[in-house]
Structures are given as C-alpha cells and as structure tokens.
C-alpha cells in the first residue's frame, strides 16, 4: 500500500539521492522499521531523552558557574573586589591578591597576539589569495596541525628547545640592541614572560588564521574581480576588496585567539617561571591565572587558600566567556548568509 503512495507524482519532485542514502534504504528492507503498534509513547520518550541531552549542555555550564561561585565565596567575603588589586600572595599568612596573575595573563596574552596576528593574517592571505591551487589544501591542513599538538608537548619543546635558544642567542641580542626600551633588562634566564608569549603565539596562530581564512573565503568573488578590473595590483585587491570586507571577522578571529591565550595553562606554566611578581622586563619570570591554579590547587591547604584559587578561576572564566561571545558575534556578522563549508 505504501508503495503506491511513492508512485504518486508531485509530492517532492524527482531529485537524485546521494549514494549513502540508497545504501541505508536497501538495508532498511532487511530489517523492517515498522514494527506495528502505537509509536506515540516511544516518540515522546525519545524526544524527551534528546531534550534531556540538550538541557545537560546548559546544565553543565550552570554547574560550572555554581561551583565557581560557591567555592570562591569565602575569598570574596574576605577580600572583596580588592582581591584583584592586591599583589601579596602569601598562603602562610592567608593573604591573597591576584594582581600579579592578572598582570601576567594580560601581558603574556598581549605579547602572544602581537607576534601571532601578523603571522596568522599573512598565512591566511597567502593560502586564500596567493598560493597555487594544489598547495592550498595541504598548507591549510599543515597549519591546522599546529592546533592539534597538545599544550603539554609545546611546553616540553619550549623547555628543552625554545628556552635555551632564547637564553643563548635571542635575549642577549635583544638586550644589546633594544635594551634602551627597558623591556629587555635583567639576566637572560630564558624562562619568563618572553618565552611564554612566544609559545602562546605559536599556539594561537592556527586559530586566528583558520578564522581569517574562513571570513576571507566568505567575501564574494565579485568583490575581487571588481577591484582587479579597476586596475588594482594583487595587494591592492586584497586590501580594499578582501581585508576591508572581512575586517570584523578577522577581529573576531583575533579575539578568539585571545580567549585561547588567556586560558592556556600547561605550556605557559612550564616556561613562564611561576613567580608572583610584577616586573616591567619581559625577561623576568611571571605567573598567570591559569598557571597558579595548575600549580597550587592540588596542594592548597586551608579553605581560604583554595577559595582564593577558585576566585582566580572564576575571574578567568568570566573574562574568557565575554571574550568568546564577542568573538563569535564578530565572526557571525561576516559569515552569516554564506553557506557552511568544510575545512580547506
């Protein structure tokens, strides 16, 4: 009976089905899908189960917020907002202030963006606008491979390769020629803010460049052709036709990279030196919000100590959430209306 209905014309119109669908359909004949009886109950149960899964996503975020707020309550009551403006961190005497960590997080992330943004945009421009077609896919894949390397491996590499390199060659050179800026003063330990900034930069480049590629690809091809037709060189075409149209999305990518840099833990912990001090020199060791949690959380004795660490986590959580929301909004303003596409 059902087969006759399929023969009726004009319901959906003849459309070629993808191959996979045919395969799935032929399997369906082997095992009958219609088991008879009333499916209303089963349908309702299934829809509630799926709704439950979806609600669990909200539940998890709610749980994170709840845990962070309740567990940091003690510290909040002890120090108030001043917690973020005090620079003492003295677990023995129960005196806690998060300023050095906030400073370290901000400076290392800013340094990372300073290095990563030009590189990432350059890579994206090359891949989308300049590279020969055969190179495009593999180049995109290779840069994205950088994002697949775990943080702890970056840290390992930084300790044994990057830091000695900085100590022996880069830092003496910087001190000699750029020492007058007072940013590169003091003994070249290798570990410190500079090493953290560089390793963070390597880690955020793939994020920024993949978003930048995405928004640049979303710029209509006619824009490029129009600018070229006016006699522009390739760079002028990229600047006026592509980058200008994609700038909000690129900003979104940069901010997304910032979000990643702010919350990055392991690689930074392994090279930043872990000293809660505020120093102007980029050679000096520092400490970040994520690192202090990683290093001290499992050893924190005393409720106030633990609570102070959770409060650092709460602050980090709020900042990264805001940063991510802003970034997603910016990317969305550029890519909306264009069809979703796979990578490369």
């Amino acid at each position, binding site marked *: 009976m*059902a087969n006759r209905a*399929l023969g009726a014309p004009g319901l*959906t119109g003849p459309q070629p089905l993808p191959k*996979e*669908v045919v395969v*799935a359909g032929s399997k*369906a004949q082997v095992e009958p*899908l219609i088991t008879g009886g009333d*499916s209303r109950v*089963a*349908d309702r149960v299934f829809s509630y*189960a*799926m709704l*439950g*899964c*979806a609600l669990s*996503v*909200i539940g998890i*975020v709610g*749980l*994170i917020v709840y*845990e*962070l707020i309740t*567990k940091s309550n003690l510290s909040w009551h002890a120090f108030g907002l001043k917690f973020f403006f005090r620079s003492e961190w003295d677990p023995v005497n129960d005196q806690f202030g998060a300023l050095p960590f906030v400073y370290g997080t901000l400076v290392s992330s800013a340094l990372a963006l300073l290095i990563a943004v030009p590189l990432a945009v*350059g*890579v994206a421009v*090359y891949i989308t606008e*300049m590279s020969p*077609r055969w190179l495009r896919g593999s180049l995109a894949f290779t*840069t994205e*491979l*950088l994002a*697949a*390397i*775990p*943080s*702890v*491996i970056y*840290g*390992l590499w930084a300790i044994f*390769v990057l830091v000695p390199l900085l100590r022996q060659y880069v830092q003496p050179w910087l001190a000699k020629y750029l020492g007058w800026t007072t940013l590169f003063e003091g003994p070249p330990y290798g570990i410190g803010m500079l090493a953290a900034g560089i390793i963070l930069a390597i880690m955020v480049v793939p994020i920024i460049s993949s978003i930048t590629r995405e928004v640049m*690809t979303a710029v209509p*091809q006619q824009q490029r*052709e129009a600018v070229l037709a006016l*006699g522009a*060189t390739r760079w*002028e075409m990229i600047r006026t036709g592509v980058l200008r149209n994609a700038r909000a999305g690129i900003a979104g990518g940069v901010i*997304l990279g910032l979000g990643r840099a702010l*919350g990055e*833990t*392991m690689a930074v912990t*392994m090279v930043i030196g872990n000293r809660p001090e505020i120093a102007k020199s980029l050679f000096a060791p520092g400490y970040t919000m994520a690192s202090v*949690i*990683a290093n001290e*959380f499992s050893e924190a004795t005393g409720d106030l100590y633990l609570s102070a660490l959770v409060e650092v*986590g709460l602050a*980090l959580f709020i900042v*990264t*959430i805001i940063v*991510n929301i802003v970034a997603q909004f910016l990317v969305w303003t550029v890519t909306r209306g264009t069809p979703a596409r796979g990578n490369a």
Partner: protein
Amino acid sequence: MPEPTAKVMLPANFADAPISLYRRGLNFLVTFAAVGAVVMVLLPLAAVFGYLIYKGIGSINWAFLTQIPKPPGEAGGGMANAIAGSVYILMIASVFGVPLGIGAGIYLSEYGRGTRFGNLIRFTADVLNGVPSIIVGIVAYGLVVLSQGHFSALAGGVALAIMMVPTITRTTEEMLLLVPQIVREAAYGLGVSKWRTTLSITLRTATSGVITGVMLAFARVAGETAPLLFTAFGNQYWNWKMNQPTAALSLQIFTYAISPFDEWHKQAWAGALILIVLIVASVGAVRLVANRGMLKGAN
C-alpha cells in the same frame, strides 16, 4: 573555493597602462611578507615534530611500552601504566560524553531547528567550548573528588567528558543537517515513527560524519593535561579502579619534563612522541573519512 569565473574583455592597450614602481614594489613586498609568514609558522611546526622524533624515537623500546616507572635516577622503566591510564580515562569520558553530545546534536537538528530554545542550546555549547580546560578541572574536582574524598579516574573522565560534549554536539548537528529532508519524509511516508526515522535513517546516513566529530573530540581531549592535574592526579603504579588516582600520558609527560632527571626527560620525549602519533593518526583518519563521507558528498 571560488575561482574567477568571468572573462573580462579589456581594451587592447590595457596591459600597457603603467603601474607605478611604488605600487608594484609594494605588491612584491607584501607577497614576500606573506610567504615569510608561512615559513615562520611552518618552522616551529617542523621543529616540534623534528625534535619529537629525534629525541623520542631513541627512548621508545619494549620496556618503555610494557613497564611502569622506576624510581627517580634509576635507568629503565616505562610508561605502560600511563598509556593504559589515558585510554582508561578516555573510555570513561566517552561513556558520559559521546551519548550526551550526540543526543544534544540530534535535539538541535531534529527538534530545535530555528527555535529560540535551539539557538540557546547552540550558543551555550559554543560558550562551553571556550571555557579554559583548567576551569573544567576545578569543576570536576568540586563535583567528584570532593564528594568521593580522593582523586580518581572517574573525576578525570568527567572532566574530559565535559570538554567532549560541545564538540560532539556541534558536529553531530551539522552532519544531521546535511541529510536531505526528503530522506526523512520518505521514511515518514512509509509510516515509520519519528524516533525510528531519526535513529535508523537520519543518524545512520550521517554515521561517518558523526564518527568524525567524535574522533575530533577524542583528539582534542587526548592530550589535555590541565583538567587532569587535580582529578586523575597521576599514579606511578597500575590502577584499574574507577575511584583511585590514575596515571595519564599527558600528566606523566608534564611531571617528567619539569623534573631534574635526565632519564626522565628522555622518557618525557618518548611519551610525547607516542601521544602525538596517537593524535595525528586519529586526525588523519578523520580527514580520510571526511573526504569520502558525508562532509564532501553533501557539500
């Protein structure tokens, strides 16, 4: 990737129109800078992989893969318990994370399409995706470790599960959306119920894409260290109990890397090489599947 499509008719003398030296030079400089950026980015990638192979391969041997760590300073020993521990924690994580993620993805594509509630879930999943992993560790500590009274494999699994859910949710949703509506209608037309259609027709059609999402989530959390620091905690011995501290490859690499012992440094490199091979293999497998399966077919 859009290519120039229109052939523009130009006046015959167009090519003779002069482009100033400045503009030509700037164009050249920018091209040069872009190539330079590519090189600068590929350099650390090559350096990381090069050093991993160079330093790691010499320390991988049978003992490394089958033995547990020796006390500091003693030669020999291996990371067998850490490799097994990582797999164990990942298994616990996928027991929680995979069904939740796929279920939420099904909800988004089959029930919540275009609704305000669906958008809220989608947005929340993206927010969860951006939460730093160390924060997830704190939450798993509060939820599991504090209530159990000690560090455990379960706590580590819960932390990683939380990190897997948003990735799986979003890829499952995207893959299910690629399944043509006509396929669902065909099933409904035959009298198949909605739940059966979703599971046996829609989800089955998108299987390879959904598996891709799960593998990507695996690759993402397999190397995570920060959320395990105060949940799984690490262990120098074998452990198969859910409620006991468990070693993990990433944790072991961290501990060994910051230790003062040369022997441990070597083992850290070897462990890192094994970890990266596992991750790159799964990402590569994903790419193979993605190139043949739904992702390409439906685009």
